[in-house]
């Protein structure tokens, strides 16, 4: 949505289609809680924000991208303020900032602990004032339409009647969020199935750094509902079964404000040492915010209280919250440059779907909302300017491609003969395989096994049949298409992980415990071939911060 608004502001002669499989205010940004990072304070500077981000990334971030990000983040957050975002304020009326993991000063701007919700609704409501933005709600994009080596539109099925519509465009921007649903335990919504990544991948665009999957240290066991990092930023403790603040043993200088990869590993190690609680949904530790008091909790963490009361049935004011590490965010994504351009002309991407890369091997909390704003704005205006200069694609061949898509959906799903497999078992087995093979800790063996399992599931997917053959709002068709996307992106995650024989950021190999800059100070690029993903590497851009040991 940020990209659509940026494009609309370049020229009102452009016609902008905002195509989404859900109504835009349902997008998963809505669930982001803690805040958006930007160097505002007197004690802060863009360089310090850049260094924190680069160190947090375990030196895999492209430093030119990080520099652009930290420079533009404050302006973007102020822009949101001008559009009406109800940021939390200081008594003097300025936007307030709070502490977050891996950030060396308070630089996370927030709207209580519903930052994503307010950010998304502000963008959505603001987008309504632009006549040139035309929404196509509940359209599921099934493929990119390419012409003469450029992306010239998309085919999208209208959920109302299962008809494929052809959208011809001079520029296409993919902003479809993450892929958390390929794992069984995730904070992500049901819609986060890696759709944009899969579309680009199948169109020949490489997916970058897909082995880097972020585990958030604090999710509710069972549901995976996120307990924001802000609960630690505001002073909450992590406590094990022995009653100890166990981070003392892992990251004493930062304690609860350490980066997510290190904290998630620490909790898993506590579990392995038998120092965690046991519950019906696996072992867990405690997140204790009781000492913060009712006033602070209700002012700054009201959503945490609401969620815990509703979904756990306890009041965090009086009892500690059970938490365990949970899949949360994808550092990898569609290979783009700093303007959101992919290697395929006419195709762009931003947000979690894209990998610029400013997050490298581990994203710092509160950088993702700012990333959506900064790179959303960048890609929107870049794509708009390119579109003004581009020649219009020929309609006819694209319409034929879209017709072929309609046939594929009808023959492959809606009127398919035979097919013995069902969606739910394949999805469940995929999620279990990913959790087992590509979790917090990985090995050569676990990844190899996962590669085999995903491949086997892809074979079974070819024999899939759906029971719903109606044309009106066929959610089983959508689930089948999503499962196809999930399998494609999952394969790149495990294949990329298998080839990276080192430990860096979120990618922790028990059989290769050290970081190996000589071999792997590089981005992984996974490209689609008939035999599965082909893995190649590209150097990381280093500007002013030479790779060093990641010390806290």
């Amino acid at each position, binding site marked *: 949505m940020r990209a659509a608004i940026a494009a609309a502001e370049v020229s009102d002669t452009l016609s902008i289609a905002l195509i989404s499989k859900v109504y835009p205010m349902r997008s998963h940004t809505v*669930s982001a809680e803690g805040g958006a990072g930007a160097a505002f304070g007197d004690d802060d500077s863009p360089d310090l924000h850049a260094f924190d981000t680069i160190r947090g990334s375990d030196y895999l971030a492209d430093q030119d991208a990080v520099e652009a990000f930290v420079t533009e983040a404050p302006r973007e957050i102020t822009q949101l303020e001008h559009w009406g975002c109800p940021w939390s304020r200081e008594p003097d009326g300025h936007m307030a900032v709070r502490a977050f993991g891996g950030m060396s000063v308070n630089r996370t701007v927030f709207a209580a602990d519903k930052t994503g919700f307010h950010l998304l609704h502000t963008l959505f409501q603001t987008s309504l004032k632009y006549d040139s933005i035309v929404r196509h709600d509940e359209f599921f994009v099934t493929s990119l339409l390419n012409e003469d080596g450029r992306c010239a539109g998309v085919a999208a099925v209208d959920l109302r009647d299962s008809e494929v519509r052809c959208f011809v465009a001079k520029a296409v921007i993919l902003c479809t969020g993450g892929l958390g649903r390929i794992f069984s335990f995730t904070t992500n919504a*049901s819609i986060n199935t890696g759709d944009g990544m899969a579309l680009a991948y199948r169109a020949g665009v490489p997916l970058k750094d897909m082995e880097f999957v972020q585990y958030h240290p604090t999710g509710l066991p069972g*549901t995976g509902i996120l307990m924001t990092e802000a609960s630690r930023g505001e002073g909450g403790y992590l406590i094990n079964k022995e009653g100890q603040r166990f981070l003392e043993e892992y990251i004493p200088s930062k304690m609860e404000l350490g980066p997510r990869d290190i904290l998630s590993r620490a909790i898993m190690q506590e579990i392995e040492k038998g120092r965690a609680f046991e519950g019906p949904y696996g072992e867990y530790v405690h997140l204790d915010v009781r000492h913060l008091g009712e006033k602070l909790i209700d002012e700054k963490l009201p959503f945490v209280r609401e969620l815990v009361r509703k979904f756990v049935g306890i009041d965090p004011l009086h009892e500690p919250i059970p938490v365990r590490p949970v899949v949360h965010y994808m550092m990898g994504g569609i290979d783009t440059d700093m303007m959101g351009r992919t290697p395929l002309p006419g195709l762009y991407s931003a947000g979690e779907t894209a990998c610029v890369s400013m997050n490298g091997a581990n994203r710092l909390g509160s950088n993702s909302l700012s990333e959506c704003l900064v790179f959303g704005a960048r890609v929107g205006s870049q794509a708009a300017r390119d579109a003004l200069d581009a020649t219009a694609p020929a309609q006819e061949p694209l319409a034929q491609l879209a017709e072929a898509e309609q046939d594929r959906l009808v023959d492959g799903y809606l009127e398919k003969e035979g097919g013995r497999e069902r969606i739910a078992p394949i999805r469940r087995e995929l999620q279990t395989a990913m959790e087992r093979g590509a979790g917090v800790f990985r090995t050569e063996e676990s990844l190899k096994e996962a590669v085999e399992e995903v491949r086997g599931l892809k074979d079974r997917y070819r024999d899939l049949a759906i029971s719903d053959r109606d044309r009106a709002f066929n959610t089983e068709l959508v689930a089948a298409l999503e499962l196809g996307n999930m399998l494609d992106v999952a394969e790149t995650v495990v294949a990329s992980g298998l080839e990276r024989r080192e430990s860096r950021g979120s990618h922790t190999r028990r059989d290769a415990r050290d970081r190996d800059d000589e071999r792997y100070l590089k981005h992984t690029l996974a490209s689609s071939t008939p035999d599965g993903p082909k893995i190649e590497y590209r150097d990381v851009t280093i500007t002013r911060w030479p790779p060093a040991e990641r010390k806290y």
Partner: protein
Amino acid sequence: MADPTMTLKVARYRPEHRPKPYFDEYEVPYREDMVVLDALNYIKDELDGSLAYRWSCRMGVCGSCGMMVNYKPRLTCSTFLREFYPKHVVVEPLENFPIIRDLVIDMSDFMEKLRTVKPWIIRTDEHSVDEGEYLQPPEQVDRYKQFSMCINCMLCYAACPVYAKDQEFIGPAALALAYRYNLDTRDQGQDERQQIVAVDWGIWDCTFVGECSVVCPKDVDPAAAIQRSKVAATTKSMMSMLLPFGVEREED
């Protein structure tokens, strides 16, 4: 003892097969921590893949999964089965909206109404972003904060007896959103917005039944927003009655 189960009566509408909505019954496993949405997902995955409904975040904030649960508008992700166990649960699409399929309603009217109230900051003197943020102390944020919490779940439209009779009515959520922007110190569009909402199909259509505020899962209290908009509109028109209409001319 056999594992406990529960019966769901689920409204179906499949216009390609039957002209009218009907009910299907499903038996699902029951656990104390299951919500109605979990039961629907169980049905879809294990019993009947053709059941259609919307859902996404399963944590009460995306606003997708509003349905009638035992005749009341509820978010199914936040409604526990234990509230009804061991009796059965009836799940139907949100009332007062046309049904597209099963539990999926047509929300295009609501989306259009949201847009008509101009839910964005209107400025007559727009400052450049480079000049920094508009200052807004916490007490000014508190004035409109509650009315900015709407997740667009439309439970209030399903509960509203006025919207049930008169689909022209702008409705609770959209009117509350207009009021939210009117209260925002950064906004200068109150007059423009007031002309849109202070009409017979706007705030004056509301009979203050208050059901909207009862069912709201986020305590937005649209009924209060509408009542206070009425007061603001009245004060404004009273004021204009008291104001003089030009200088009285002396006869010469």
